[in-house]
């Protein structure tokens, strides 16, 4: 295994891109990242996408996007692991470069969801659940997290308002992110009075799934960027873990075991303690997802994450700023592309290019994305050298 570096990053705005196709979005992000990295020659393309076959009726996105961007001479394929697709694709890139097979590769995450109506989208998102045990009973992704929040609140003594700090902080951050879907503030009272989606989760504690693409360039040698000013970013840890898709098939549903094991393995590989992490991007489609992810990764003891959130721990200026560009709630949830957006945003933090969202002195960053109800978890540790 040799060191692996992130040398370029780019994203499109997260939006309802009525006038842009999946291919256009992916191409824009890929060209942007290649330009950011100084136009290196890439040897492979890993496409992260969760819903293309279901919503866009298009499979083989690797070959398809390589042809569309004139790169058919190299290899490429798509990777599907629901909301973890982006992290899993990044892991493929990491393994290809770490092993010595390739010198420089690209990861592009893309999701195009607004060509269908809401029910079709929700049916597609529910394919990340266990089809027979859960989706056939009418479970949706939001309802699955609601089951966990209801039980979590019962066991640890929280109500729905205890989860409001996450959407409130995410919206406060996204005001400064020109690529975010929602750039307006939220207050806890608004979150509390929003229409219910799946009790106890309400509309304003629920992320919106939208279109977008993000890309990163991964290489065996560091690059200082076009103007020579950037510090190298090393992918110091990369780990993937999984558990049963169905909540009922897990011995302890409130413990996201895949998230815990992938975070633990990535931190071990990077030789850093969880206390050394300066900034994090986690799955935060609802406050409960953030809470369970923080506890699984070891940032908070079980049952304490909402109390820590209420103290501002995860907001700008807190001990562990997360969702610094708005997270799933306010930047928008791009499903299969989410894990790549996280890396683009954290690279900006480590390069000191995050503007008003900058976490001062950020050196170690953790990114984790989850598939379905945490059945797949991909964690990466980025370290500024």
């Amino acid at each position: 295994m040799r060191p692996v570096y992130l040398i370029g990053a780019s994203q499109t705005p997260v939006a309802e891109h009525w006038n842009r196709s999946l291919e256009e979005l992916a191409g824009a992000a890929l060209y942007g990242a290649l330009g950011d990295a100084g136009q290196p020659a890439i040897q492979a393309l890993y496409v992260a996408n969760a819903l293309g076959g279901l919503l866009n009726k298009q499979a083989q996105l690797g070959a398809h996007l390589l042809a569309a961007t004139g790169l058919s001479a190299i290899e490429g394929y798509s990777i599907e692991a629901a909301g973890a697709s982006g992290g899993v694709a990044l892991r493929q890139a990491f393994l290809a470069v770490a092993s010595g097979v390739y010198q420089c590769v690209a990861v592009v995450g893309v999701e195009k969801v607004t060509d269908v109506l809401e029910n079709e989208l929700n049916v597609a998102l529910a394919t990340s659940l266990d089809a027979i045990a859960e989706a056939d009973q009418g479970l949706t992704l939001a309802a699955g997290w609601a089951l966990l929040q209801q039980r979590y609140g019962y066991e640890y003594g929280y109500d729905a308002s205890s989860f409001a700090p996450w959407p409130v902080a995410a919206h406060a951050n996204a005001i400064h992110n020109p690529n975010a879907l929602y750039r307006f503030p939220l207050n806890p009272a608004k979150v509390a009075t929003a229409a219910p989606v799946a009790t106890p989760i309400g509309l304003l504690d629920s992320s919106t799934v939208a279109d977008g693409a993000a890309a990163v360039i991964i290489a065996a040698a560091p690059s200082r960027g076009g103007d020579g000013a950037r510090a190298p970013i090393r992918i110091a840890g990369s780990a993937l873990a999984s558990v049963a898709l169905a909540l009922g098939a897990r011995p302890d549903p409130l413990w996201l075991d895949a998230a815990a094991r992938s975070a633990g393995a990535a931190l071990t590989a990077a030789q850093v303690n969880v206390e050394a992490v300066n900034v994090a991007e986690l799955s935060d489609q609802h406050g409960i997802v953030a809470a369970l992810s923080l506890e699984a990764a070891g940032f908070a003891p079980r049952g304490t994450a909402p109390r820590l959130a209420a103290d501002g721990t995860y907001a700008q200026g807190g001990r562990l700023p997360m969702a610094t560009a708005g997270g799933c709630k306010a930047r928008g949830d791009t499903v299969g592309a989410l894990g790549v957006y996280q890396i683009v945003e954290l690279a900006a933090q480590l390069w000191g290019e995050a503007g008003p969202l900058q976490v001062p002195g950020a050196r170690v960053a953790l990114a984790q994305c989850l598939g379905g109800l945490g059945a797949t978890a991909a964690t990466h540790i980025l370290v500024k050298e």
Partner: protein
Amino acid sequence: MELAKHWRLKGARYRLEGVRDGRTNTITFPPPHVPGPDDEPVILSGRGEVWSWTAVENGLDAWGGRYIIALVKLVEGPLVTAQLTDVEPDAVHIGQPVEMVTRKLRELGEDGLLVYGYKFRPLLLQ
């Protein structure tokens, strides 16, 4: 149309038929996706209690859009995802005793074929 798929599931859906691992005596429901060498069928009692629940407001159209879903802890041990029926959300609580009933889950395809399966309702007789 998925007709064969739903037919294959008839044991679990209509009789709450799970499996017992003959070696460890562990009971699994719904039955495991990949059968084990020591699995033997076992019909569950259908009794259990609500472990968690949610009133879904923007559910899937084919299931009617609004419904209550629970994780039900069966007395034999398994934790099962299923809808609650014959009850309103304000009368549901964690720990509530429930029993299995057979109900229509959804209509399937253009012909509106009916898919039946298990739901749970508050226990009628203690």
